């Protein structure tokens, strides 16, 4: 039963990433694209966790943690760049 639920969840998350990609392409403004990228990172986190369950390997948590941190910092850096014109003063 877990295999089917896992396949369903993986398909849902993959479809979600495709929808985010559509929003990333449509835009229309830069902040929309930042939001789409941020959501894409969060969906990739979900995808990696589910893939870790699929492989029954605990190796992916480090990657998940790194991805969460890099995603957060990059989103804040993009927003700061739009607000201030630079990232670090």
């Amino acid at each position, binding site marked *: *039963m*877990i295999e*089917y*639920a*896992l396949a*369903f*969840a*993986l*398909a*849902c*998350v993959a*479809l*979600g*990433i495709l*929808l*985010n990609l*559509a*929003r990333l392409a449509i835009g229309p*403004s*830069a*902040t*929309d694209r*930042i*939001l*789409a990228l*941020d*959501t894409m990172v*969060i*969906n990739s*986190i*979900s995808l990696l*966790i*589910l893939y*870790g*369950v699929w492989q*029954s390997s*605990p190796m992916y*948590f480090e990657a*998940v*943690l790194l991805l*969460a*941190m890099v995603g*957060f910092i990059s*989103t*804040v850096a993009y*927003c*700061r760049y*739009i*607000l201030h014109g630079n990232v670090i003063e």
Partner: protein
Amino acid sequence: MELFYEILVSALLVIAGVFTLIGSFGLLKLDDLMKRLHGPTKATTLGVGAALLASMAFFALFVERLSFHELLVTIFLFLTAPITANMIAKAHLHRHPSAEENLPDTSSDQGWATYHSAPTIKAAELTKES
């Protein structure tokens, strides 16, 4: 008991998938950025949260390996999601100054803090009151 564990993990996995999909669909469907900010919050909290709980339950029940790494990711995401949303909303408001008309009234002389600087209090007024 084995069946109960399987149902638990499967239910958590299905919840994770459905909420992630709903969040991404909301991001695509809603028509304004301020509305669009709502969609991904479901994916962040319920989607990733349920996926992490499912992963924890799976490793604890079927691989006999209890780990709390996942809680770190959950806590980190719960802490950073409001900051990200705030930054994106602020960047949006400053890119589109006309958005101020759509903001609700602050019910005070002072407008929204992101557009107007804080009211200055003169030192003389402070000493007079005290």
